[in-house]
């Protein structure tokens, strides 16, 4: 087991573990809608499977934020 920080909360995880696997474990419904940073560095989506996490890594993921008013829907 290893200790990592996910969105600021400490979690015990089994290694090896890559970013893609971690995002799945977090029960993210739409992984294509999140941006990820590992130790405050952006992790590009195409690199998620190749980034292996290690003890004390800090992983943050945030959902895309956006929307539109009803004016757009009617147009």
């Amino acid at each position: 087991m290893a200790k990592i920080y996910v969105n600021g909360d400490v979690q015990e995880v089994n290694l090896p573990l890559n970013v893609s696997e971690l995002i799945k474990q977090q029960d993210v419904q739409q992984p294509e809608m999140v941006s990820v940073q590992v130790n405050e560095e952006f992790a590009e989506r195409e690199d998620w499977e190749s980034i292996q996490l290690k003890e004390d890594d800090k992983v943050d993921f945030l959902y895309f934020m956006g929307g539109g008013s009803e004016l757009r829907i009617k147009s």
Partner: protein
Amino acid sequence: MRMIIPQNIIKELIEQARKEAPNESCGYLLGTDDEVIENYWMENIDHSPEHFSFAPKDQFAALKYARSKNLKILANWHSHPASPSRPSQEDLRLANDPTIRYAILSLLDGEPKLNSFKILNGEVVGKEIHL
């Protein structure tokens, strides 16, 4: 638990939204537990009266700022300059974060209305009226 937005914060949101109208204005509501302590301005990178988006780099900057103040992101908010305080179909489609609330400030007819919503799987499962 109900999210509390103090009057001075609501006033700040209205001022920001009016200043940026006719474009949609937006930000994060930061706080502790369920009380909003601070409005964190976010740039609407769409600069549009009909749409808003956050830049991921700005989102992570907001997260970093919140942590530095021991605050949490309680909600995202955006304005509807000319439509009601309810989520549009696009708002629902893009409300992917189950951990926060989505607040919408309407400036319709010069009478600001502020509601916040809990949205899961594209459906509103909770609504709170703040103004």
